[in-house]
């Protein structure tokens, strides 16, 4: 009985926990970038203020039914994916959280965004969406290949088992140590998934006026912000679970979150953004071959 109650409580509580973690990470990201730029930077929970202001908007111009529904699809898809990502001390769905399922579910938010932005009929938005789908062929492929290598190595497609396999011998058995090629390729892919420069081609303000978010305002933008923060936490958790041996307790988990995010941010602060085709070509020139080499290495060496 109490497992059921615990499950209900967790289903309600966990998105809030992920959201507040995302707010802290977002605030930390803006403060870190500001410090690199010799600025003071906003407060630690600035994304929280932004979301409150956006949700408090009085007029929210809607572009039709599809526009409203797509935002629900966007946020709902992300929160649903959240339940399948194993996190320390959470053992309901996480156990059965198969990576293929997660990879499938994560496409629902981008599908929702594509439908909503298509409805707003803003040329900037449609260019942004076409770029987002192009970039999928870049970083999504690399991350998938990196995971296939791990799946072959540990003979499982469930993230939970990969975590257990990594926790057997402390740091020595972390995937990033055992198969560094996959780890580096996944780090590049993470840079693309989080839409950080140099692969920030989807929301390039100077070229296409923040792409998909051009026509979103008020509550729509608020929901997109919440989704963006939760997605930030989730994608970092992917990397931690697959390559840094998951986390036994919450303290270690938060430390790892901030560590990986710092690596991503430091690259983001000092590089411009590629053109769309250059970004794609970069992925096909360096990270993808790395991942392929890693997979081949696992296939033949680890017999």
């Amino acid at each position, binding site marked *: 009985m109490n497992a059921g109650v615990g499950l209900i409580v967790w289903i309600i509580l966990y998105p809030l926990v992920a959201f507040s973690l995302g707010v802290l990470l977002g605030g930390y990201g*803006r403060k870190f970038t*500001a410090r690199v*730029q*010799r*600025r*003071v*930077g*906003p*407060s630690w929970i*600035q994304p*929280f*203020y*932004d979301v*409150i*202001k956006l949700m*408090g*908007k*009085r*007029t*929210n*111009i809607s572009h039709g039914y599809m526009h409203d529904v797509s935002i629900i699809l966007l946020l709902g898809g992300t929160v649903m994916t959240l339940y399948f990502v194993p996190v320390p001390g959470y053992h309901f769905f996480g156990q059965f959280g198969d990576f293929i399922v997660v990879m499938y579910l994560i496409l629902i938010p981008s599908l929702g965004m594509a439908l909503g932005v298509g409805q707003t009929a803003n040329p900037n938005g449609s260019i942004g969406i076409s770029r987002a789908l192009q970039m999928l062929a870049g970083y999504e492929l690399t991350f998938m290949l990196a995971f296939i290598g791990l799946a072959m190595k540990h003979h499982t497609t469930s993230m939970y088992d990969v975590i257990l396999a990594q926790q057997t011998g402390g740091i020595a058995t972390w995937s990033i140590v055992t198969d560094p090629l996959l780890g580096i390729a996944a780090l590049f892919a993470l840079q693309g998934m989080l839409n950080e420069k140099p692969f920030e081609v989807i929301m390039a*303000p100077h070229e296409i*006026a*923040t792409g998909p*978010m*051009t*026509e*979103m*305002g*008020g509550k729509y*933008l608020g929901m997109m912000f919440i989704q963006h923060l939760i997605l930030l936490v989730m994608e970092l958790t992917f990397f931690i679970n697959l390559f840094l041996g998951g986390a036994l307790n919450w303290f270690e988990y938060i430390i790892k979150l901030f560590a990986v995010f710092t690596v991503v941010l430091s690259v983001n602060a000092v590089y411009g953004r590629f053109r769309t085709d250059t970004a794609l070509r970069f992925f096909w020139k360096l990270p993808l071959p790395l991942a392929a080499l890693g997979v081949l290495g696992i296939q033949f060496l680890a017999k």
Partner: protein
Amino acid sequence: MAEKLLTQRNAWDRVLSSLKKRSLWMLHYCTGCGAIELPPTMTARYDMERFGIMPMVTPRQADILLITGYLSVKTLKRVILIYEQMQSPKYVVGFGSCTINGGMYWNSYSTIKSLDQYLPVELFLAGCMPRPEAIIAGFNALMDKIDQGKANSWEDYYKNYEFYRKNQQHAFGDIETHHDIPSDGAYFGILEADK
């Protein structure tokens, strides 16, 4: 219901407005010569992001519309289109004496003379191009007004829309904007507050 009258604000309103004032997004659009003082305000030395003020790209996402200095009639037409796309509560900040009463270009044939005939202005900043410190002091004043719930000049645009519409048509003739303001006002419940 419009922003409640000052006396009716309960604790929840006060908490909300004190949170809302911490995040203001400024439209990245330099309409006049005062915009040269915006980069120094945004960047490392004066850094307005400390107050949560960030330049945003499109009118849909912005709260503050900066009219930085003089406004030629051609730009006024674009500014009206942009102002109506913005989501309220929205605040117009006029820089320098050109927006108050024509300023340096009082005898020019192509610039409008006082901004508040065409748009409800929340805040005027003095200075023939206000300095970064003045801009930040102005934004702090705007934040205090939001905190006390007095920053609701945007309702004025919905309430007496005819006054603004007449002046706009006088300035550049009739243009069809994308938003039918009176019906927006009614739909979002801004007009019937004082009925």
